[in-house]
């Protein structure tokens, strides 16, 4: 093996490498520098960026031997004398770190820029970071972090910088910890590269797994022969369906997804066999030696065909053919409603499949412990569901399985289903060795569930004055080969298909269909992203036809307290939509471009760029709803050093849950935020927090943490009460101290006498000495909800939002650019304004992608978009100016009034952009994403007609 000499982070090293190895692998596997992440291995995502002789390169396609004699800098080299590099510090403080997987690459690319150009313009920053994808932050905080470093370097003693802190939205006066913009408690680990994601774990004697995927999108399996693969040296196990001792299927709602296919394959990502071998290379080679004989079956590639009576049956698990679920929303009298309408708008909309493109590909590690239990390390959105499904397929009790959550490099709904979890458990048991299964980006893109492609036929009826009287919709959703969360997602698409408006007569028929495409499941917005595009487009068309201002039309019909949703739920509280509309409207009113103003497309314009605003509103449920029990358990433990730990198996996928839980716990226990540790997602050590889905964790696990901390405080108050000789109601927890207030004076106007004080640590010691519990666990059950079709509340809370987008269309090329987005989001209560800012900005930028850049293409069941180079998510160059308002219409359910924000922030963005395009050039886009090719030709057609 050749010897590679290089200087890594200031140290000269010599390491033996294979001639075909890449620098990223050498750094990670041979030097243990796992801060350098691998996101795609196709030079697209930038996560593996390191500096070679000062220049940023993507180390995943950089042959290691090219670095001979070079100076290599990685994220681990930035900390000097235990002091963070200014960029690291700025990323922490500006909230430029969320899931953190892209962070090392972003910081290294930024360092490469600043080392050569200490005073870059905004444009130079964007040019330098264009190929570093971040899926969480929306890049706004990344830019502000870098600029703050530039500014601080320029500042001198004489001219100190004006402000280095991030611009936060105005929120309510904070409590002691809740409501404060603390930087993430895991941010330092993430900016220094020490945060451990699943692929960063290594075990002695660890094997590497690989999965044989289906050769056809739809075929019968006639024979599988693994003899040759098993004979390959280095191969330790080759497993097929015959080796699955328990449940042959898995699934979150319906058990319809084969662990390893047995009768047939239903999509290209289906797993047919799995291999464990000494190296990944050998495992992949073994896959080629597995012989599978298929009989091809006809392919159904869209939901409308799937519904036809003569359609080939793809998955009959439910006994009603390709129909996964027919969802019906019925309110009032639809015929009477349309009879009353003066204006009816009827249109058909199409949305494609979308890919989450989280930066961290799926990875799982399985091992058998000395006691014979199964341990699985994985970044999963639902650890306890993983445990249930692993145990079921291995035919062992759940007590024999432990799921340990690693850091998760983004999820967005795409890490709720089983991918490699059961496979690594099977392989570990078969080999009695640890087995790691790391998906390539290609595998990730083919295998995991996507956002549903939909066809939406939407008919909106209104009175002359704009009052909505009827909404009728037919929605066809492509749920792909397996159910995943398809019926739930499509239920949400259906129930939200009248928009955030009070409509007396609603009838929706929604069909979630099985097809031979990759399964579709949860993806930020959960079906509402799709229906909101149709709803808000129809609203603008209606406004124009009626000659009403589009914002006025929305205001007139907006859900507010006293109105009912289309499922008949009475809105009793916490409805901030009107306020959101008002805030956005007042912000954009100062612009001379009026929303919805008739703008004749004109080729003679002096400039080829035409600008216009577009507006949209949305709402989205917080919590599972629909009758599903929605509960979470959290446990607080206090220690005699004055610290506390809050525990729950609730996944952090970049949204900021650890801070939410720590802030709530700190606030309730009256100790500083820094003294609260957070332990998430270990099924042995943390109680079930439920799925990270439906924007529910802040509300549901937040409540569990609140009540657990409160219960703990009450126990401590009793201990303090005895020692400080005051009744428990006079004991106050604040700033790490426990005070016994003197009793109220007889007149009730003040307290007499002095305060007796103890440190929090002392009180914990007292409690221990008295044998009181120092742990408190609370199972929080959210208010009961009702299934669709039954009277009552389908959801316990809704978040609302309004957004306006300023868009520029180039009339000579059809290119579309979003210049500015004004957002107002009703989140009930901001628990952490910095994290909230990131959620809003990230949601907006993600759905700029939904509108303009992203499309996952499958042709006859074959995935065309099987690499990141074919899936363009927004880069830093797409980032508009974002003005974000927070509305805090408190919910009586969530902690301190909080509701979810993860999804709502992204939902209005797409229709706001689409409406703006119409307002700019008069072309209505009915099919996403916007195709500049088609847009230009439409514009040209209009001028020649």
């Amino acid at each position, binding site marked *: 093996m050749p010897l590679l000499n290089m200087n890594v982070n200031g140290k000269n090293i010599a390491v033996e490498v294979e001639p075909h190895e890449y620098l990223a692998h050498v750094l990670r596997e041979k030097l243990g520098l796992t801060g350098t992440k691998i996101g795609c291995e196709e030079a697209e995502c930038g996560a593996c960026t390191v500096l070679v002789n000062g*220049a940023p*390169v*993507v180390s995943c*396609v*950089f042959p290691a031997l090219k670095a001979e004699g070079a100076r290599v800098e990685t994220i681990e080299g930035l900390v000097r004398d235990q002091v963070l590099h200014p960029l690291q510090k700025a990323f922490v403080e500006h909230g430029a770190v969320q899931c953190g997987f892209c962070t090392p690459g972003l910081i290294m690319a930024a360092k490469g820029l600043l080392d050569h150009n200490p005073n870059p313009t905004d444009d130079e920053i964007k040019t330098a970071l*264009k190929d570093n994808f971040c899926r969480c932050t929306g890049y706004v905080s990344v830019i502000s972090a870098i600029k703050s470093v530039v500014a601080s370097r320029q500042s001198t003693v004489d001219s100190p910088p004006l402000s280095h802190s991030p611009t936060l939205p105005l929120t309510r006066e904070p409590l002691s910890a809740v409501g404060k913009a603390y930087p993430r408690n895991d941010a330092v680990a993430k900016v220094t590269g020490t945060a451990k994601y699943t692929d960063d774990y290594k075990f002695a004697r660890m094997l590497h797994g690989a999965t044989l995927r289906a050769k056809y999108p739809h075929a019968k399996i006639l024979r599988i022969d693994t003899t040759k693969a098993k004979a390959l040296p280095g191969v330790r196990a080759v497993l097929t369906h015959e080796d699955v001792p328990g449940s042959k299927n898995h699934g979150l709602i319906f058990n319809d997804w084969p662990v390893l296919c047995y009768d047939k394959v239903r999509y290209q990502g289906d797993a047919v066999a799995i291999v464990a071998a000494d190296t990944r290379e050998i495992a992949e080679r073994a896959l080629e030696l597995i012989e599978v004989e298929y009989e091809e079956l006809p392919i159904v590639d869209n939901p409308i065909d799937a519904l036809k009576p003569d359609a080939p049956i793809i998955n009959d698990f439910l006994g009603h053919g390709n129909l996964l679920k027919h969802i019906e929303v019925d309110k009032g009298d639809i015929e009477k409603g349309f009879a009353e309408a003066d204006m009816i708008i009827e249109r058909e909309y199409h949305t494609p499949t979308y890919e989450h493109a989280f930066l961290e590909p799926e990875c799982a590690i399985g091992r058998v412990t000395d006691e014979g239990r199964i341990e699985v390390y994985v970044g999963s959105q639902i650890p306890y569901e993983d445990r249930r499904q692993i145990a079921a397929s291995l035919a062992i009790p759940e007590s024999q399985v432990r799921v340990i959550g690693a850091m998760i490099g983004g999820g967005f709904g795409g890490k709720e289903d089983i991918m490699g979890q059961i496979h690594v458990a099977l392989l570990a048991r078969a080999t009695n060795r640890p087995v790691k299964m790391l998906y390539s980006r290609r595998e990730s893109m083919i295998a995991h569930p996507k956002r549903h492609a939909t066809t939406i036929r939407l008919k909106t009826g209104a009175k002359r004055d704009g009052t909505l009287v009827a909404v009728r919709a037919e929605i066809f959703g492509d749920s792909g080969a397996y159910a995943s969360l398809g019926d739930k997602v499509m239920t949400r698409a259906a129930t939200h298909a009248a928009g955030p408006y009070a409509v007396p007569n609603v009838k929706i028929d929604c069909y979630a269909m099985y097809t031979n495409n990759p399964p579709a499941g949860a993806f930020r917005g959960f079906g509402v992203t799709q229906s909101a595009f149709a709803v808000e487009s129809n609203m603008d068309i209606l406004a124009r036809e009626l000659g009403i201002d589009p914002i006025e039309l929305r205001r007139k019909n907006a859900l507010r307290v006293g109105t009912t949703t289309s499922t008949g739920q009475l809105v009793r509280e916490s409805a901030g939509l009107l306020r959101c509309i008002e805030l956005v409207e007042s912000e954009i009113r100062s612009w001379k471009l009026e929303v919805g103003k008739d703008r004749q497309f004109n080729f003679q314009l002096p400039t080829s760029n035409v600008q216009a605003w577009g507006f949209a509103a949305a709402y989205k449920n917080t919590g599972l709803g629909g009758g599903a029990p929605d509960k979470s358990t959290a446990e607080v433990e206090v220690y005699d050093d004055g610290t506390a730990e809050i525990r729950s198996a609730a996944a952090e996928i970049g949204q900021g849950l650890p801070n939410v839980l720590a802030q709530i716990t700190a606030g309730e226990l009256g100790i500083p935020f820094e003294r609260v540790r957070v332990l998430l997602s270990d099924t042995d050590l943390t109680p079930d927090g439920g799925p990270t889905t439906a924007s529910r964790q802040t509300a549901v696990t937040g409540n569990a943490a609140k009540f657990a901390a409160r219960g703990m405080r009450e126990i401590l108050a009793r201990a303090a009460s005895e020692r400080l000789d005051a009744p428990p109601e006079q004991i106050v927890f604040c700033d790490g101290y426990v005070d016994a207030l003197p009793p109220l004076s007889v007149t009730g106007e003040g307290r007499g006498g002095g305060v007796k004080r103890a440190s929090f640590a002392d009180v914990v010691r007292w409690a221990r000495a008295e044998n009181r519990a120092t742990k408190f666990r609370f199972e929080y059950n959210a208010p009961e909800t009702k299934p669709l079709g039954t009277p009552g509340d389908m959801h316990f809370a809704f978040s609302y939002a309004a957004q306006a987008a300023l868009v520029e269309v180039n009339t000579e090329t059809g290119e579309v650019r979003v210049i500015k987005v004004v957002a107002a989001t009703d989140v009930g209560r901001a628990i952490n304004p910095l994290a909230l800012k990131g959620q809003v900005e990230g949601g907006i930028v993600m759905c700029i992608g939904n509108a303009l*850049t992203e499309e996952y293409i499958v042709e006859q069941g074959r995935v065309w978009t099987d690499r990141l180079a074919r899936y363009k998510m927004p880069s830093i160059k797409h980032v508009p100016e974002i003005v974000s308002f927070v509305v805090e219409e408190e919910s009586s359910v969530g902690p301190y009034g909080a509701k979810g924000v993860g999804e709502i922030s992204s939902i209005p963005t797409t229709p706001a952009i689409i409406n703006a395009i119409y307002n700019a050039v008069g072309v209505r886009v009915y099919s996403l994403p916007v195709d500049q*090719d088609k847009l230009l030709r439409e514009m040209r057609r209009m001028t020649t007609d």
Partner: protein
Amino acid sequence: MPKFWDEYHIPATLDDALGLLARYDGRARVIGGGTDLLLDLKEEHYSGARPHYAALIDVTRIAGANEIREDADAGWIVIGCAVTHAQVVASSLVQARATALHEASGVVAGAQIRNMGTVVGNVAHALPAADSAVALAVLGAEVQVRSKQSTVNSEQWRPIASLYLGPGKSAVDSTREIISAIRFRPTGANEGSAFARIMRPQGIALPILGMAARVKLAIRNSQFAIDDVAISAGPVAPTLFRAARTEEFLRGKVLDDATLEQAARVLLSEAQPRTSAHRATREYRVELLPTMLREVMTRAVKRAK
């Protein structure tokens, strides 16, 4: 990923590199920055082929190959086979005297790829829409192709267009030959050049259309007229395309709106854009050709003044 190559050599001289290629006798392959090659190998693998080389011969450390130099006497700028896009972008010489190439290299991929990928590699890859190739085409670029077996005088230069046999198909056999350098004619007095391109926001990371122009102006009847012009575009043909008839039409004319409109018609008559799946329709490319012609011509003329 499977092993695509067994050995990796980084020769220090061109002779060594050529010697290695000769020794492997077709089983080794030249690698520059690798940003095209390595992804191509992967793609071939996924499409079922099993690409494999006994060795890769890395030409990025060949002595002198990382230089951009001006041969003022002969009127050439020469760039060696190790010169990256980033070096080209940073070169004030290229920026001033080959602005089209400066602009083209500046939009190749992202910063990391520009630090790795070479201009020569871009040409060797033979995509008719490659940004730098489109720009080089109007700069009268020539390449030097070297090999051990070659009977051709190693000092001989060939026009860049002669390397392009079809999309991704190069006349250079990268298992036996090395493009050691590219040279081109920098712009001089009364000359200017420009490059522009349109990308698709979705899907493939290849341009919908790229175009470059180089213009030389002369004063006629106290007006600036086009003394000489070169226009290239891609992809509008299977190989590197020069708009010969449009150039011919424009020579001697004063560039005004009417002339540009007529020139666009000539361009549309000779360019043959096609529909490429998931990238662009022929119709769209046809719409863009006049727009981009105006764009690059206007900028090039402005620079020439």
